[in-house]
């Protein structure tokens, strides 16, 4: 029996002195059930501790543990752990705890998408046609018809409304010193060069020397200016309104 347990342990062990314990999802599931029976009352539902017992997610002992080599002796040593868990059960608990730790260390990504539909549809419609002046450029029966259907996740819709991606390029007019103006779609600009493709697709490039005049027209500039103007309620109202346009 012991040999089998050790063999099992060897199979689950990860080589190398530093590498984190590789979580076995099956063992973690068993470990969660054992935890719920023996540990949860004191250490809390999410192993974050209570007044009676410490947080096990941020515990250096648990973090150092590999397959029970620290937790096993601690359970024997520390008061309040009277139940005799088998070696197998201890290993399962470690997988559960390591799974919780990994989830915490990764929680800069959401488990589920945020609920951004907290605004008011009518207030959003009023803003769209009023203070926001969205209707100056957009039409809910034209370019935005059915916009609510285009995004399965309303958070994506919120992002696209606030930070629209470029569907039309920036337009640029370049007039060289005493030369003829050439206009087209901007390819690249910095302090030293500007390049564009004209309406026939020809590539033109200019050094920005003295006397070279440049005029830029960015179709997204209004959206950029609005970032200083929206309130968060405006944003949530507009998103709710747009999402309703199915």
């Amino acid at each position, binding site marked *: 029996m012991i040999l089998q347990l050790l063999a099992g342990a060897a199979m689950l062990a990860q080589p190398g002195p530093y590498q984190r314990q590789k979580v076995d999802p099956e063992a973690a599931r068993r470990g969660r059930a054992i935890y719920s029976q023996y540990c949860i009352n004191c250490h809390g539902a999410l192993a974050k501790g209570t007044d009676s017992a410490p947080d096990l997610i941020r515990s250096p002992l648990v973090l150092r543990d590999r397959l029970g080599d620290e937790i096993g002796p601690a359970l024997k040593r520390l008061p309040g752990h009277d139940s005799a868990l088998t070696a197998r059960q201890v290993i399962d608990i470690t997988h559960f705890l390591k799974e919780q730790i990994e989830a915490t260390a990764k929680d800069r990504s959401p488990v589920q998408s945020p609920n*951004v539909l907290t605004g008011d549809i009518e207030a959003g419609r009023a803003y769209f046609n009023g203070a926001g002046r969205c209707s100056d450029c957009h039409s809910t029966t034209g370019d935005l018809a059915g916009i609510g259907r285009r995004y399965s996740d309303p958070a994506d819709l919120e992002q696209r409304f606030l*930070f629209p991606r470029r569907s039309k390029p920036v337009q640029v007019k370049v007039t060289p010193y005493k030369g003829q103006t050439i206009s087209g779609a901007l390819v690249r600009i910095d302090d030293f060069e500007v390049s564009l493709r004209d309406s026939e697709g020809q590539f033109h490039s200019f050094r920005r020397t003295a006397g070279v005049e440049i005029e830029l027209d960015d179709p997204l500039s209004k959206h950029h200016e609005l970032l200083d103007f929206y309130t968060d309620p405006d944003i949530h109202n507009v998103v709710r309104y747009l999402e309703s346009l199915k």
Partner: protein
Amino acid sequence: MNLIAAILLSVIGFTQAFLDPARLLQPPTDAWPTYNGDYSGRRYSTLTKLNQANVDSLGLAWVFRLPADRAAQGGGGNSAQVIKGTPIEINGVIYVTTPDHVWAVDAHSGREVWRYIWPSKGGWHIGNRGAAAWRDSLYFETPDCNLVALNMVDGKERWHSSICDLEQFYYASAAPIVVKEHVITGVSGDDLDIPGYIESHDARTGKLEWRWYAHPDPGTPEAKTWPSVEAMMHGGGMTWVPSTYDAELNLLYFGTGNPQPVIAGQGREGSNLYTECIIALNPDTGKLKWYFQPSPHDTHDWDAVQTPVLFDGEINGQARKLLAQASRNGWFFVLDRVTGQRLVSSEFVRTNWALGVDAKGQPIPNPAKQPKSDGVLVTPNQSGAVNWPSPSFDPDTGLFYANAARAWSVYYLYDDSDKPEGWGGNDRGGYSEAMLQAIDYKTGKIRWSHKWPGNGGLPSAGLLSTAGKLLFAGDPNSNFVALDPANGTPLWHAGLHANVTNAPITYELDGTQYVTVGAGDTLYAFAGH
């Protein structure tokens, strides 16, 4: 002293691979002997050989391309090397680092002299800010939590000393700073609510001398800025960026990082000392002298670790010893570096998250702009108005320069429970405009602002100003640029293969002034011809 000893001493004195620590107390001219060039953090060179009249003659001297790594261990890295640290140059040899790697490069030819690779046990390989030198030892930090000392002559390891615990999700990326015989090290780690700290190790043996934690002792008045001891002891405050140092006052200055949990702040009500603070510390004892907090109770990941630049100046007609920081949260502060008294607080890019400043001059966070489940629009974004890249202060113009961005994103709270852990949220998406800001230190007002055209991403490039009236910067369009520090007019540039990813350095070698900068995996050395 007998003849043999005198000869031996003279040999040591002229040895290539040796830094007399007294050099660290002088402005950088024929060397760039420490991360910021000198202890002040100004990144200002007194060299005038290169100047506005002859900058057109600045041309490429050589290129050193770092060989690609085998796959980095421990996750978070890739095989292409990126130079994110400031190299140091001592006696004609440049020492440049990436995670686990140190190269010694001949500053005349750009050829490798030696290379050292630390066998890694893991840790996030996000970047390495550089090496430090003391006599004939070279020191650097590794992602797997070690301070390593090399023999500068041949790159062989002398010793290594543990500086953090990989098990607790710490890692290390900072450049050490040597002050007297102390090697000062900083740590990183934002994943699992751990305390930040700074340490001093003996320069000869690596033995730990002291550790200062970025939190108060339990039971002190400052500890009341946390709801519980447990929250305080898991509160973050990482020490990402190297310190500056005033040798007369014997004070070390550095900033601390964001509190943890990073985004979800509801379990850590209070101003959360000493996270997002500028700290003044005694380097011999590790005792705190004073603190100032650019971002009380932050929930946006705005580390206040930007270089605290030291210079002497005049405020309201009074001569004072000053410290200035352009902080990640978009605010600029000038403090009296003896007492920590605030003299100037101002925005260096317009922000939308603060309700003015309190009596100490510290911004008051607007609760409406703390992350919410349905998202709030905030400027700056998480990357910040500036990040780790270095600023520069030019005493000739009296201007503090920051390579900045005005950037927006939406902050979401993912965990609204009473006790979030880890991040518990994040920002997403955005729009950004990049600009080089020149700030009048006496008033905090913007004297001039040079908008970088085109790509608006936050520049990854630090700054360098010189007495030759040149301000060197990388733009977000793969150019290395020299501007007029008085008005921001570009005077010279070189189109590189990638954006500048570190801060430029300058030094004079055999009568020639060089300016050396890193872009991606390549070190470019420019020289006046």
